[in-house]
């Protein structure tokens, strides 16, 4: 790719940062070139972010309807899934799924609670309460 063909699409996913692309000058010599984004790349990144966001939103609905414990929501809100949380806590996936149940959730031992709070990077209070979701709820 030529230097002048390096996309400069100011992608939202770059958050104002620049990435390095290796591209050639007119004489064919490779140089590091800054890129402010590529539309194609931005599309797939935002698609992945939106997918995670959709999961978090669905989990929030479950929570509001009293169908699940806050754990499911916090898991998705931290951009994790069952497999990820299972690996990060060392618990089995079925154990975590059990804790999505409101009644089971109230009976989790303090030790397991701390596994969750560490993996998700939130406090015990945050884990046990229903958070308020901001503008991204639309």
């Amino acid at each position, binding site marked *: *790719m030529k230097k002048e063909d*390096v996309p400069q699409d100011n992608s*939202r*996913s*770059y*958050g*104002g*940062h*620049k*990435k*390095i*692309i*290796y*591209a*050639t000058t007119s004489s*064919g*010599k*490779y140089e*590091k070139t*800054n890129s402010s984004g*590529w*539309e*194609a*790349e931005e*599309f*797939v*990144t*935002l*698609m*992945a*972010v939106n*997918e*995670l966001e959709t999961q978090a939103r669905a989990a929030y609905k479950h929570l509001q309807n009293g169908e699940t414990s806050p754990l499911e929501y916090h898991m998705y809100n*931290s*951009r*994790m*899934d069952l*497999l*990820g949380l299972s*690996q*990060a*806590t*060392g618990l089995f996936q079925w154990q975590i799924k059990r804790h999505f149940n409101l009644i089971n959730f109230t009976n989790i031992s303090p030790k397991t609670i701390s596994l969750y709070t560490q*993996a998700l*990077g939130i406090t015990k209070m945050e884990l046990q309460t229903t958070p308020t979701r901001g503008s991204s709820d639309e």
Partner: protein
Amino acid sequence: MNKFQHQHTAHCETGVMSSMLDYHGVQISEPMALGLSSSIAFAYLPFIKLNGLPLIAYRMPPRSVIKGLKKRLKLNLDYERFTDPKKGMIALDKQLDAGNIVGLQTSVYWLPYFPDDMRFHFNAHNLLVYAKKNNTYLISDPVFEKPVSCSTDELQKARFSRGALAPKGMMYFIDKPPKPVNYTKLIPLSIKSSARSLTAPIPIIGIRGIRFLANKLARLDRTMPDKKQQILFLGHIIRMQEEIGTGGAGFRYMYASFLQESATLMNNKLLEDASNMMTDVGDHWRNFALHTVKMCKNRSHYDLRELSKLLHKCASEELKVWKLLKKI
């Protein structure tokens, strides 16, 4: 104060090693770090899942740049891992106090300076710590333009995050000044090694891996009937190719740059031709990405067979380069 110079690079691991060697008096560019460690690759690994999608890698597994350079350049490079986070932080401080710079493996998600849209649970990010000032670590993260900083708590969290590829506080540093690099010996050696692994007779690795994925795309309608799932899968391929700091086209441009630098160092025409061919290969990969995204956006032109063909084209063009490089 030390004379450390931050360097903005495309990829984290190659960038860290390039900067670290530079600090210790051996100037090695990022593409050279990729090439000499033979870290370019292709692998389609359906049994390793990231957010439910198979791992598609355009380079060798994490740490292969570090290990490869250690082996080839005979570096006095030490790794340490820790079970106790406190000890891990103390060991880091000790190296910094001694005036050394330290490479760390961390999670991306817990680093506070990452833009929100780039924060994913990926545990094999690399960065360099070059100093500590009042409980704040001064960090040279090679994928950022300027140096950044991080508090002790945040850095500890990032170093000791758990899960797939957990870093376990992995830190690495160079003890003794490295010897000058013998390019005429190492360049052919490392290129041959890459050419071998890219043309290996294993169905999911190298050129055969690319063909495997291309064939999978052609019959995706049968194996993954859900359209939405298909689109997520296609997007995932492109993300692995472009977003994860590859310098464009899944490291192919960076490798072409390495071949060009090698051609000059060794005054070798074959390498120059191979570099030009690899640039074309990179253009094919970018073309594949562009078409894939177009189809994801505009479903009316959605044609998986077409994508499969484009990917087969990448494979056949790349095979030509590796066959040529075997002759070096």
